[in-house]
């Protein structure tokens, strides 16, 4: 059985705005999944439903065999964390230390261990020297790192990133993405809602939502291989995939899915001729 199973879920904020309409998919443990789609395509709604922050109106979601509902939610939240978009609105404690402690207090971690855990995870996100900083003295990227540390400290199996890098400057974005890839290597199941096409190319699995419906779900290179289909819903195609398409039209097949590999392939191609 898959770690996360979403079956025919439906959510409407009111009669005129159906956010999620009959979406089904399943995600395996330890995979890195990106969710893309335009604003208003239902990405955040879907994330909130998985995290149990919005009630599922129709259909069902099971996580680790447990149905997401009011009864199981406390149990499920021990395995699942979510990092939101706005760095300021998820900083609960008055200092970095207190913020990481917040989740541990909820998890009833013994006080003797709290300090050690806080220091361990602050070090993991590179904020060991900032433990007593207040949020107003941290950059957006640092605040997001605190949020990630706070969630990692609770040792979840799944972490959802709801456009966690969209309000950050390029440096902050890079740092957070680095951390996300690192999580994936630690066998944590990552679901990342993103507009960052390069990040999508790095993921194992890509879900495309359009107007609340599941438009595609596949490996990113397969999703982007059908460029025409994506253009129909006005989604960007990564540069590498665009180059591939041009060559495909000239009956030349390229294998690489990243810039470096493509450069390698292209100069070899040139020297063969």
């Amino acid at each position, binding site marked *: 059985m898959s770690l996360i199973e979403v079956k025919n879920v439906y959510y409407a904020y009111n009669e005129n705005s159906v956010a999620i309409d009959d979406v089904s998919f399943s995600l395996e443990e330890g995979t890195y999944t990106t969710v893309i789609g335009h604003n208003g395509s239902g990405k955040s709604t879907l994330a909130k439903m998985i995290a149990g922050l919005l009630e599922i109106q129709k259909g069902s979601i099971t996580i680790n065999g447990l149905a997401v509902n009011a009864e199981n939610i406390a149990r499920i939240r021990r395995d699942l964390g979510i990092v939101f978009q706005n760095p300021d609105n*998820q900083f*609960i404690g008055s200092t970095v230390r207190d913020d990481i402690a917040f989740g541990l207090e909820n998890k009833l971690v013994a006080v003797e261990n709290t300090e050690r855990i806080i220091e361990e995870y602050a070090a993991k996100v590179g904020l060991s020297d900032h433990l007593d900083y207040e949020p107003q003295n941290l950059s957006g990227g640092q605040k997001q790192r605190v949020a990630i540390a706070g969630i990692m400290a609770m040792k979840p199996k799944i972490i959802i990133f709801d456009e966690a890098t969209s309000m950050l400057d390029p440096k902050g974005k890079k740092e957070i993405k680095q951390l996300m890839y690192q999580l994936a290597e630690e066998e944590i199941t990552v679901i990342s809602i993103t507009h960052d096409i390069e990040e999508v190319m790095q993921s194992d699995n890509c879900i495309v939502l359009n107007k609340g419906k599941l438009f595609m779900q596949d490996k990113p290179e397969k999703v982007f291989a059908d460029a025409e289909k994506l253009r129909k819903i006005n989604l960007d195609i990564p540069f590498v995939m665009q180059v591939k398409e041009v060559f495909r039209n000239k009956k030349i097949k390229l294998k690489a899915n990243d810039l470096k590999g493509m450069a390698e392939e292209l100069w070899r191609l040139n020297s063969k001729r």
Partner: protein
Amino acid sequence: MNNLVFGKYIPIDSFMHRLDPRAKLIGLFVMIFAIFLPKSWWAFLAIGVLVLLALISAKIGIRMIVQSFKPMIMMMIFLLVINALTVKTGDILFTYGTFALYSDALYNTLFVIVRLLLMISLTTLLTATTKPLDLTLAIEWLLKPLEIVKFPTYEVALMVSIALRFIPTIIEETIRIMNAQKSRGVDFENGNLSSKISSILSLIVPLFSVAFERAYELADAMEARGYVPGAERTRYHILRFHLRDFFYIFICIAALAFSIFTRIYL
């Protein structure tokens, strides 16, 4: 703008900083009585020396205390004028036409001023040496007895600490909205009353809408990290009384005893 919000915390290490916030809060309450009871200068002298010692042990510098007096200067002058015009007892110090300044007017004013200065020094001392969060914990502890009547002390303390944490964020937001509105031609400084009200509205409406949005998102973030209102939680911050805290409270009570003594016998 940050300085206006709360007596500012000075992040250094000192005897006063290390005291348990509960001891400091109890000490403050005791000292309020010690300051307002006596009518003898001896009591004020004794309390004044104690306050000075506390200030020195807190290492926060006289300058900050003097700064905190500044807003009071106008009030003190006003007090003196009122007393000079109304108090007609004691010796006449000097006369000017039909006006006579009596010694009691001067004494009364001085008493009030000394009391106020001592009070301000003590509260500044408290806020400068205690983190807002610790103060919240101390207040929560003092409210504990109310739990008998189902008063949610823990939730209230959490609320207060979140409110304190968001003050700088909201101030930042206010400045940002003001700048945005200024760039659209809203004038916050000039104009008559009605145009001023409408320009303030252009600040308040977006400020509230953003604040509510923040509140929703924060609630989601708290829930996502396993917070259930009213549920059991472990506590990362645990306050512990030390010998020095009892020593501090003892001194405050001694000061109160002395001021009661002077009130009765001097």
